[in-house]
């Protein structure tokens, strides 16, 4: 088998294959439903209804999409420069820790000053967490995939230590959870009575900001050049190391904002289950969006919808909610294959 690039893919190819990937994902969902002994159409219907069938469902999906936009952006920024940041989970928790540290009374700033300050320090913490693996990659050539993955486990244990030790809520009835944020440190809801906090709008603004950086600034151009061909970029005189460090700082900071917005906007405190894998799901979000920052918003809504819909469907007819994880993982694999097939022709021999 041989792959031949298609000179001009055309609209049919470049839309047809991704559409087929989406169709394959739906077919996979129906197959899983059949295996679970449920009516596939009922499962799909309940998932759509659970994700977007009511105002409550829709808001739930938007809330769930918020951290996914941030982690998706973090991954998109890094992957674009071929910096394989699989540690968004750790950076998210770093942001969450700082948010709790500053937001439980340690910093006596009046509303609305406390929020931007805590966001800034959360982002710095996340950036520093990724700076470690990025430095190891540049200094010693240590593969950042493995180090960022291993850091996720170290960070989770660190959070566990904090929640059972210095950051434990004395009034928490023994549960490993932090104190609640003071009111000045909380992100308010966008509208009174609407269960959606400002984190969502900030995530949209972040997506726009990343898009501007990537398409309208020198740094964006440099990050793309390094990702396309680091050797050529170095030959062209670009400071590849420094660009990768900047990329790491931006990526880590964005992932940390996911933790910040979850704690300040939704949960109000830190627990060990703050993130049900938002960092890993961010990889799926970014890849489905073809690493495009604006596309990240769309794919985060899709992935969030699948998860919220699956939760609701599972409560109704008992098909395990892990169907959502399986679907999004399958969607990722279908999509990367579809994007390739849109660009190449498969020849025998």
């Amino acid at each position, binding site marked *: *088998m*041989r*792959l*031949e690039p298609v000179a001009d893919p055309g609209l049919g190819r470049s839309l047809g294959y991704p559409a087929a990937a989406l169709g394959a994902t739906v077919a996979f969902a129906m197959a*899983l439903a059949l*295996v*679970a002994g449920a009516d596939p159409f009922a499962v799909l219907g309940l998932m759509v209804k659970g994700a977007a069938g009511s105002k409550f469902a829709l808001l739930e999906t938007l809330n769930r999409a918020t951290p996914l936009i941030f982690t998706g952006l973090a991954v998109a920024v890094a992957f674009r420069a071929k910096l*394989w940041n*699989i540690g968004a989970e750790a950076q998210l928790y770093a942001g969450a820790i700082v948010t709790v540290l500053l937001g439980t009374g340690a910093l006596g700033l009046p509303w609305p000053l406390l929020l931007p300050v805590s966001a800034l320090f959360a982002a710095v913490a996340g950036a520093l967490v990724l700076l470690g693996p990025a430095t*190891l990659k540049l200094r*010693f*050539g*240590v*593969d950042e*995939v*493995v*180090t960022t*993955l*291993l*850091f*996720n*486990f*170290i960070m989770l*244990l*660190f959070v*566990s*230590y904090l929640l*059972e*030790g210095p950051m434990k809520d004395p009034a928490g009835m023994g549960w490993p959870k932090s104190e609640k944020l003071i009111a000045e440190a909380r992100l308010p809801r966008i509208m009174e009575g609407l269960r959606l906090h400002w984190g969502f709008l900030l995530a949209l603004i972040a997506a726009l900001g990343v898009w501007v950086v990537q398409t309208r600034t020198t740094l964006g151009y440099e990050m793309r050049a390094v990702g396309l061909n680091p050797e050529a970029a170095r030959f062209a005189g670009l400071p590849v190391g420094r660009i990768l460090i900047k990329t790491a700082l931006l990526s880590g900071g964005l992932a940390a904002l996911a933790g910040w917005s979850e704690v300040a906007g939704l949960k109000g405190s830190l627990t060990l289950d703050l993130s049900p894998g938002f960092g*890993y799901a961010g*990889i*799926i979000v970014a*890849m489905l969006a073809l690493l495009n920052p604006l596309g990240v918003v769309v794919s985060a809504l899709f992935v969030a919808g699948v998860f919220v819909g699956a939760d609701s469907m599972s409560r109704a007819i*008992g098909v*395990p909610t*892990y*169907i959502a*994880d*399986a679907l*999004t*993982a*399958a969607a*990722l*694999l279908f999509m*990367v*294959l579809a994007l*390739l097939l849109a660009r190449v022709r498969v*020849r025998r021999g």
Partner: protein
Amino acid sequence: MEIFDILLSATFWAAAIRIASPLIFATVGELICERAGVLNLGIEGIMIAGAFTGWFAVYSGLPLPAGVLMALLVGMAFGALHGTLTVPFGLSQHVVGLGVTLLATSMTYFTYRLALPEVTSPPRIEAFAEWPVPVLSDLPLVGPALFAQTPLTYLAFATVAAVAFVLYRTPMGLALRAVGENPAAVEAQGLSVTALRMGAVMAGSGLMAVGGAFLTMSAFNSFFFEMVNGRGWICIALVVFGAWKPWKSLLGAVLFAAFDALQIRLQQMPIGAVVPYQVFLMMPFALSILALILMSRRAEVPAALMVPYNKGER
């Protein structure tokens, strides 16, 4: 000094070899993939799938060896998926690997919840018993450590020997190593790069799944969520530590496991009352990162690792 008492005790080394066994399977599995030029980040998910498959097969009434075989087959199936996407299609090994891990993990959890909807404590199985080797197991220190283990541990060591033999003493091994260094040259010899790499990824993934099955069939005797707990990622570090050589990787796994066994024992000692237990649990991960840094200078990475091969391009 208490630490020396620990290091000289037979139970400590027996524990180290036991902890090393699943890592040995998975590390050698990853090594085969990487020697052929394919980084397999599906390892973590494939280990989870293997752990569940082996356990569930036995729980459903199959004999123990059949459980191991089922795990092997499921691992090879995920390997076939990974291989198809990364070898003939040449897709990003990072993205596909993580996708396979996410898919294998979620499919496993989905199946587990389907099979056992309402269990709070997972049922246990009658796992592999220890098979003490006559005479040898009576040797001091070495006996209990090496010759009074379960059959799967013996299989782990035998696998390393077999893989080392195939890699360095057979034409197929030569072709496999060459395909990870210079695939064009292998193609010029009239051999199929695709077939060699696919075979390596499938065989390696099968071994990863058997490594996962060790956890449920020879260690914990039941399956629970997150039981693999990053072991797959650690194995990727162990391959680097072992410089892509089977016996060195085995040594790395045993050394690593010894530290892990020591860490568990230190928690019971006076120091464990002072230092939070999470610090001890961080040690394996920190140690893996340290190993990567130390070995980075002298790493002999296969030249074509992560480089897809397409006959169309020269």
